[in-house]
């Protein structure tokens, strides 16, 4: 029941918003997203932590002749990601409020529709439904980037769209293939797909069909080329949605479909996938070091973090998997925070160029502190949200292969280097002409940053409830893969 409400509420409000005009739109959108967040809280409170199977299920036939059910529900992993989505959306809407976008009605409506698609992806228990939501989530973000993007928007959004759609078409082929392997009458339900025992040869090529789709979405090296342009060119709310939530779709898809359906394929190709992920991590970190554009720098750092999550998940260790799930939530929050503080910077100074910034802390100490906390969370300092996830991830990768862990660990160091360096350049330093343009946080900005900082500390200091939610689902996943947990 609660899953249904969580799923359809943003859709209904989003469609209604198209009919409204003016200031009320913002208020309705914000109100709806807060109600949605409260629904998410209710789901958290009532969740049975001991159970690794999906809860709050709804299962009704949709396309009977093809064995497709409208089956939604949440296990721990879904719940955490749904929670992340409902937590971030009010903040993103509030953050978008400040910039005066033309046609705001459509922007807010599209954001809510995006939430509908994302929650659909995270709750679908039927592979066909998963695919539908996978695509549905793509459409609003495409239009957000196309309509409110920067100068290169047409070309860049096109590349983004073609890239991701090509990936998902491959996934569709894979899904149709496994569908025909289920005993007649065929079914798309995840449980029946999990029960399949495919031959090693089949799993070997099926792995790639699924992997491409998820690798493009994450993105993993060498499918990352759409990322930096799209993140930079999209309007800030779009970038927040992309890096905060949508980049998790790829990892989530890998956890939900790739691992349990083709475990032998993972055994065969996992080493390659994990190596690609680590290469991507290093590549993105190095790229981030040489960026002058602040938004681009964060885009690359985001890619590095998601790459590490992918590596942890593909390590197939308990620690790596739990760490991956926790880090998805933590990274979503810190990525949102980083893009937001940079957005404030860009808005006040009119520049994203690191060389031209500086001397902000002198005039805006609160801003500088908030920025620093979010930044430290992003580079995984202990007691911040980034630490727990990244630590577990590294532990998992280390159990898998110490060399890969070494190279993956470099990203933490590199991350600290480029993040602190950029902070030093942009925020610290003596008073400059930039400082005159700057003023400290206003009320609305505080309202956004305080929950983010609170979340960073809660996750960092007391991550136990979140780990407890994730663990049974991860265990269930491993039992589906029928391999022993290391």
């Amino acid at each position: 029941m609660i899953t249904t409400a969580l799923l359809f509420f943003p859709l209904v409000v989003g469609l209604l918003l198209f009919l409204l005009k003016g200031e009320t739109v913002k208020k309705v959108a914000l109100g709806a997203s807060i109600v949605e967040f409260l629904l998410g809280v209710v789901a958290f409170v009532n969740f049975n932590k001991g159970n690794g199977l999906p809860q709050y299920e709804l299962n009704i036939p949709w396309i009977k002749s093809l064995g497709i059910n409208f089956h939604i529900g949440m296990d721990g992993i879904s719940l955490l990601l749904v929670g992340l989505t409902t937590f971030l959306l009010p903040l993103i809407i509030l953050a978008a409020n400040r910039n005066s976008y033309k046609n705001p009605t459509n922007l807010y409506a599209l954001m809510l529709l995006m939430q509908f698609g994302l929650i659909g992806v995270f709750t679908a228990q039927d592979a066909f439904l998963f695919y539908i939501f996978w695509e549905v989530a793509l459409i609003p973000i495409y239009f957000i980037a196309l309509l409110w993007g920067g100068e290169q928007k047409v070309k860049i959004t096109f590349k983004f769209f073609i890239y991701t759609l090509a990936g998902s078409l491959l996934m569709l082929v894979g899904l149709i293939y496994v569908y025909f392997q289920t005993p007649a009458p065929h079914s798309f339900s995840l449980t029946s797909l999990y029960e399949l025992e495919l031959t090693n040869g089949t799993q070997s090529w099926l792995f790639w069909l699924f992997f491409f789709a998820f690798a493009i979405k994450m993105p993993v090296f060498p499918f990352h080329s759409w990322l930096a342009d799209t993140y930079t060119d999209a309007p800030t709310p779009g970038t927040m949605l992309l890096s905060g939530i949508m980049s998790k779709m790829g990892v989530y898809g890998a956890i939900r479909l790739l691992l349990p359906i083709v475990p032998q394929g993972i055994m065969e190709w996992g080493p390659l996938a994990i190596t690609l992920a680590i290469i991507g991590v290093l590549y993105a970190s190095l790229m981030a070091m040489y960026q002058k554009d602040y938004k681009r720098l964060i885009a690359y750092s985001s890619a590095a973090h998601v790459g590490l999550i992918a590596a942890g998940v593909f390590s197939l260790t308990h620690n790596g998997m739990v760490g991956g799930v926790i880090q998805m939530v933590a990274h979503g929050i810190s990525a949102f925070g980083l893009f937001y503080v940079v957005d404030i910077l860009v808005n006040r100074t009119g520049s994203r160029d690191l060389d031209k910034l500086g001397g902000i802390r002198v005039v805006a100490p609160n801003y500088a502190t908030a920025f620093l906390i979010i930044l430290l969370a992003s580079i995984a300092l202990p007691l911040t949200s980034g630490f727990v996830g990244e630590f577990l991830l590294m532990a998992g990768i280390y159990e898998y292969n110490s060399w890969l862990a070494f190279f993956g660990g470099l990203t933490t160091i590199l991350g600290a280097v480029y993040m602190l360096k950029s902070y030093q350049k942009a925020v610290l330093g003596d008073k400059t002409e930039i400082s005159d343009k700057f003023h400290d946080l206003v009320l609305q900005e505080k309202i956004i940053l305080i929950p983010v900082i609170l979340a960073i500390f809660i996750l960092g200091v007391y991550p136990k409830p979140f780990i407890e939610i994730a663990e049974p689902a991860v265990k269930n996943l491993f039992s589906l893969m029928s391999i022993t947990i290391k």
Partner: protein
Amino acid sequence: MKALLLVSGLGFLGILSEILNFKKFIYKLSIVGLLAAIVVTFLEWDNPTPAYFNNMVYFDNLAISFIAVLLITGLLWFLMAESIFENDGLQSDKSTLVLFSIVGAVCMVAYNNITMLFIGIEILSICMYVLAGSKKESLGSNESAMKYFLMGAFATGFLLMGIAFIYGASASFDVMEIKAYMSNSPQNIELVYTGIILLAIGLAFKISAVPFHFWAPDVYEGAPIQVTALMSTIVKTAAIAAFYKLFTVSFGSQEIVWSTTLSYIAALSVLIGNIIAVFQSNVKRMLAYSGISHAGYLLLAILANNAAGGTALTYYTLAYSVATIAAFTVVANVASVKGSSDFTSFEGLGKKNKLITISVIVSMMSLAGIPPFAGFFGKYFLFTSYLENHSINLVIIGLIGSAISIYYYFRLIVNLFKGESDEVIPLSLTSKIVLIIAIILTVAMGIFPEIMNGGW
């Protein structure tokens, strides 16, 4: 059956209106008549005695689904084409021709005898030849009619020859008797094979599949835009339904003869249609080539050679027709203001034209096969029906084609948001109704994809 009579009656009413001088009502009468025909068609669902006229026509549920598709498309077409029924003294001629072409189309989906199929094709085609040339003063329209007629005449020749060969071998025109003949290791096998291939060529002309597609872009471009909309929806639906029935029922047991040929035709149509569409600068031509690629997808249902293929076909033709009519409605309105239907005419229209923008987005995404719109499920049903008993190769080609098609369909969407323009394209009431119905249908068919299985 009643729908067939009703629409024929409407056609005659059109002729009478010329004599009895009530021409100005004929447009509204046609719309009301088509609405009534749709209702009557649905009432005939699960008809206990489907055969009429000594087995010449047969109204089973599949035929009724196709008739419903044709009539809904026809109704939407009448609404979108209001402007060609202006008081120019010829409106009764035009409405009569269109109504008779629908009659021909209904014969083509409900035939049970190949002569009836031939009669249906000819009724439809002759009306279309005249309609293509209905803009008498336009050179393009004349060229279009001439080309269409010449090519159509060729196709008719092939068809007739094929029918003669099949008759020569089986000594029957009846679809069921031919089926019985084909299933029991037929004599005169060379006559049968030649006949089947000739029929396939004739019908491939009608659905404009590669390599029998050369007429389509020129004819589409030259003909009045409303007639083009009619050609790319009703003609294609009727031809593919006829194709499906003939090949899966009558020749189903001889699959080995035609499946390889048709597979190549399907693959080539999908690839060539999509690739050439990428390079078009005119939206009408782009839609013509996209129509060629859709012919390729539709052929998959015939290649599937099973009942699921027929259901998939009804769904796909409705999804395709509705989206195409919406696209042509927009193109017609934009072209009438801007004077051309090039991609550049659409630049910047996304600002002030909400309905046009939403229609373009929905119809293009549906044609490109992006969920949750109807076009996606259409393709999906086609692919699964084909995969029930075939390998995945053609489906992969289909998916590659889909990926290419996104480029040119999205080009139209992107153009709406390119550049600055405050131009408002005025839409007539009927155009608005068509667009709204098309959007609702395209979305609703996506949410309730079982609509064609009687799953409502």
